[in-house]
């Protein structure tokens, strides 16, 4: 990905210089190797700190909502998965396509710093990405891990490396390739459990929720100006999970509100400070939608209806839920 970083630094400089774009949305380097944060670059000089590495997981498309409200055009770097979100934002008129210039960038799979820590890397000062390996230089010595073991969940089940929308591409042939896993396996496992088991599973997970709203605020689909849960007049406002019902309620409704719109970008799970597998809620809806109404991939295109804004007269009845066995 270093090669791509050099390519996009150069291209961003050119595009700023020739006036094609007025600003650049990318990632800037941080204190450590693993903490680049999204940033807007307005000068060619500032591009020196533009980074792109295995920790540039934070998706940029949602930032375009604000960025395209400004005068002029913004250059944005979109990984393949981010292009789905971008398409979705276009579809819902959140982002002005005219004001964006998209460089689709190749991706070698994003890394999960938490996984590295769990694998035993303590006090990580810097990291080297070396092909199929990741080397962590820590306060307590160097440690090498298989890149695959350190991949984010969302990357393990990557939807594909094809960019759905772009103005130009920046890809390199030295990108690490990996075999993806079926994203519905875990959902299927849960479906196979008894209701009591499922209930305990979800209670265990959702009871950790601290209602920081990171899942919601990072979600490219959750782009309401004011969420129902923040609105004192909605009748369902809840700033904190006062009890287990509210833990369930927030996550059921959030998943429902993004049902048919969620492209399964996995940001919700990535950003969760308590590591709750929120993507399993969204994937359940996606799996059901595919089974009930035909395969649908949100964000594959920038127009058309989504499964919950259309219908077919021959749709399955809700009673299908009872027919699927189990109590």
């Amino acid at each position, binding site marked *: 990905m270093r090669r791509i970083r050099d390519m996009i630094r150069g291209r961003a400089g050119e595009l700023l210089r020739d006036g094609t774009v007025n600003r650049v949305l990318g990632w800037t380097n941080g204190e450590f190797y693993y903490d680049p944060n999204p940033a807007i670059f307005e000068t060619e000089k500032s591009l020196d700190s533009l980074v792109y590495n295995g920790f540039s997981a934070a998706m940029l498309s949602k930032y375009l909502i604000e960025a395209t409200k400004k005068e002029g055009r913004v250059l944005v770097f979109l990984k393949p998965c981010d292009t789905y979100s971008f398409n979705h934002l276009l579809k*819902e008129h*959140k982002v002005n396509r005219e004001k964006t210039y998209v460089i689709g960038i190749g991706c070698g799979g994003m890394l999960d710093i938490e996984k590295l820590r769990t694998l035993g890397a303590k006090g990580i000062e810097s990291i080297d990405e070396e092909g199929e390996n990741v080397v962590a230089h820590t306060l307590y010595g160097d440690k090498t891990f298989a890149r695959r073991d350190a991949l984010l969940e969302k990357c393990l089940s990557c939807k594909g490396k094809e960019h759905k929308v772009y103005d130009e591409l920046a890809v390199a042939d030295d990108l690490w390739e990996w075999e993806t896993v079926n994203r519905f396996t875990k959902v299927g496992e849960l479906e196979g459990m008894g209701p009591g088991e499922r209930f305990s599973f979800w209670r265990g997970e959702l009871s950790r929720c601290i209602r920081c709203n990171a899942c919601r605020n990072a979600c490219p689909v959750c*782009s309401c*100006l*004011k*969420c*129902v849960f923040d*609105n004192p007049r909605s009748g369902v406002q809840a700033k904190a999970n006062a009890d287990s019902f509210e833990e369930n309620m927030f996550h059921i409704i959030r998943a429902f509100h993004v049902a048919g719109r969620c492209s399964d970008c996995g940001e919700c799970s990535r950003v969760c400070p308590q590591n709750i597998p929120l993507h399993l809620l969204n994937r359940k809806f996606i799996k059901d939608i595919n089974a009930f109404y035909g395969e649908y991939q949100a964000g594959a295109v920038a127009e058309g*209806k989504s499964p919950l804004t259309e219908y077919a007269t021959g749709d399955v009845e809700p009673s299908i839920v009872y027919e699927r066995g189990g109590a």
Partner: protein
Amino acid sequence: MQKIGVFICWCGSNIAATVDVEAVTEAVKAEPNVVFSTNYQYMCSEGGQSAIRNAIAEYGLTGIVVCACSPRMHEATFRKTAAVAGLNPYMVEIANIREQCSWIHKEKDEATEKAVILARAAVAKLNRNVPLFAGESPVVKRALVIGGGIAGIQTALDVADAGYEVDIVEKTPTIGGKMAMLDKTFPTLDCAACILTPKMVDASAHEKINLYTYSEVESVSGFVGNFTVNIRKRARGVNSDLCTGCGVCIEKCPSKGAKSEFNQGLCNRGAIYIPFAQAIPNVPVIDHDACIKFKTGKCGICERVCTAKAIDYAQEDEIITKQYGAIVLATGFKPIPMEMYDEFQYAQCPDVITSLEFERICNAAGPTKGKVLRPSDHEPPKTVVFVQCVGSRATVDCGKTYCSKICCMYTAKHAMLLREKYPDTEAYVFYIDVRTPGKSFDEFYRRAVEEYGVHYIKGMVGKVAEEDGCLLVQGSDLIADKQITIKADMVVLAAAIEPDPTARSLGTMFTASMDTNDFFTEAHPKLRPVESPTAGIFLSGLCQGPKDIPDTVAQAGAAASKVIGLLSKDKLMGNPCIAGCNEPLCNGCSSCELVCAYGAITYEDKLVIDHGVRETRRVACVNEAVCQGCGACTVTCPSGAMDLKGFTNLQIMAEVDAICR
């Protein structure tokens, strides 16, 4: 703070026998903001209503709950009562303690407890009610009819006779539509022109009817009662005001190569032409593609011969913008193309024709002056085979899944007319089923068989082949379980009919929904068959589904009566229980727009002031005159910006809370 009065009805013993109305009266007094409660034998009687009116005045009530029969029964009654007493009618809630309580429960304790809970839920909801006011919109007293066939003409005449202005927009140079092409009509065999032409004349002469022929609808905006429509009046090349209809130009036109659309391409016409003699208006048009003057700049004969100086080559399309209160879609139909049916050799053999072509051949004003002659050699046919259901009831390829409805009858008519004119010509009809529901229809078909000796063969034709100037028609005779081959001189295909292709773009323009076959869908298949789900848009004739002339005329009249009903109002009172967008919450996602069955939601860029932030945002706007209040949008809206007046999120949740308390 509300002041609520609760009125409990005994409904004689209907309620009072199972519900302890006194106990309910007492119990509801503990509910928030209830300042008064009472019960009465018959709340809906004058005595009961006056008790309500008095209490409203005496206690200064801001809202009332009536615990009585179903709201479907007397909600309107009590709303009126409230209005008389100066209360907003939407500050009335009904607790259904009869149909949904006293009538279904036998135990008095149980029924009383439930009645209290239902009353409590109604109070809880009422506490969240706000006065609602129905929006009013003026009605433009003019209707637009799109399509000038028999459906459009009939609708226009009926509306105009009621005293309202009607404009007809017809895309061809004349009104008359498909019916004008027909020879005779079943089952009475009266001549189509004889019954249609007077109607065409009536329409053109009617002081309230304005014809825009050779014109098309370009765009539309607005809503029921107040549509604004742009009509493109295509350049005729002839000034209608000056033209006397003498026909000299048509006679002298040197270009004769264009196929006559009216005669189904069976003969030619000039570049300047009128489709048929009785055309209305009787003003020719210049076919730009065929005209030598337009193609080469030379010629100009018509201009020279026109003594009225009506020819105007420089004429340009004109856009006319007008307002209408109601719009009727009467876009009609056309037969499906037969070219892809290789087995019938339609494209290859001139003597294989469609039924509509056969109509023209039978017609005295047609290409053969009414003599039935084969197109190939102009010889009279001795054997004619009619094939029914060509492209109808088919689930494959280019066919239509529906029954085209009219073919059985016109095929019987054709065979009968043929046998009548030429008794020594044999007529064979291949049929799958003969469908004749209709007044005197089956009798008509039986006459064809019994009196006219038409040979009906149960089966389908599998192959038509030309051999020595004859057509070998191979088909099944299912009753004999035989494959038969008939040596015919002419084959007539009863082609399936489909909506006119222009309907699709009009449907989009008017947000009039269509089914998979591009027929317009009605607001309700049984109860509102001539209305589109979009308010103010009505359906007339074949554009809604296959039908014959009597049905078309009946539906045209029905559509007219709906239009008249609408135009007779000065103002439309909307239903105030409609969706509304809380603009600061709207995130502009368009989900609501996508689920609205009525096209009532549009998006606009608006300045929104949201807690001190001023921003121009894309927000949803509900057209109050169009919204029907179903609430589909409210659930699809993730932010809760869309809410339904009279059934708000908070109201429904208050009911839930009260019931579950």
